[in-house]
């Protein structure tokens, strides 16, 4: 007896790939850390929503033209640019949770109190790429606020 067999077609494979891509996009979309891919001169090619949120206090939303990570971070610290420029290897960790303080938000809105005040920056050169920087941004505000509270409790 002949049995009908269904073999995957190219359109099935394409649909599966699309579904997989959509799932990966959603995964990165909801990541609770900022993810940025940039060239070695700082031009941003990819960034997830949390990265746009964490960089907002550095006036990410103002301005025109291309997005340059070093130019954006310069408003708080030029250190990442220097660390990348002086990094001698072709792969590896450039910095790990390098902490920078963000400028204070000028706003009367009570919601501005929730704005991040410090970022942790982890930067890597990915293997197999000659001009690709991967940067992970974390909100270090809670840690800094705790440090300040502890400092205010210290006996004088």
């Amino acid at each position, binding site marked *: 007896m002949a049995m009908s067999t269904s073999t995957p077609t190219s359109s099935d494979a394409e649909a599966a790939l699309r579904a997989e891509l959509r799932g990966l996009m959603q995964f990165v979309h909801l990541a609770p850390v900022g993810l940025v891919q940039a060239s070695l001169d700082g031009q941003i090619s990819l960034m997830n929503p949390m990265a*746009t949120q964490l960089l907002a206090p550095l006036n990410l*939303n103002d301005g025109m033209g291309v997005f340059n990570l070093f130019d954006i971070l310069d408003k708080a610290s030029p250190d990442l640019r220097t660390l990348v420029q002086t990094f001698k290897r072709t792969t590896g960790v450039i910095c790990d949770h390098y902490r920078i303080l963000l400028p204070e938000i000028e706003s009367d*809105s009570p919601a501005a109190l929730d704005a991040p005040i410090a970022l942790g920056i982890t930067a890597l050169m990915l293997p197999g790429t000659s001009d690709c920087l991967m940067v992970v941004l974390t909100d270090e505000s809670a840690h800094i606020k705790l440090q300040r509270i502890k400092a205010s409790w210290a006996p004088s």
Partner: protein
Amino acid sequence: MPFDSPDLFDNVCAMSPSELDELPFGVIGFDEQGIIQRYNAHEASMADFEVDTVLGQHVFIELAPCLNNYLVAGRFEDSQAQGSPLDETMPYVLSFRMRPTRVSLRLLFSPSAPLRFVLVQRHLA
């Protein structure tokens, strides 16, 4: 209807979903709990999300975590707490398919309206 129309909130509130689909900018309408009730065709096309998937999601947690901050979500919270209307337009950067994109956002809230809106106008490259 232009993005900067002064009576846009009243018009958007009165429009049916199919009428919202005709607008040349993105419309995201959500209720007091943040649940998305309106998501027009322009926004779905530009963001590459399916309308049926987005409706019922939480706007600031599931759809647009990049708006869950003092600039956008906080403005709605402030306006609700103060019982005052909100109509503010601001430059913003959204991440569409992980590509940073400059847009204008218009935030609309009225204490007497069941829905509040984020409108998204993409800038020409």
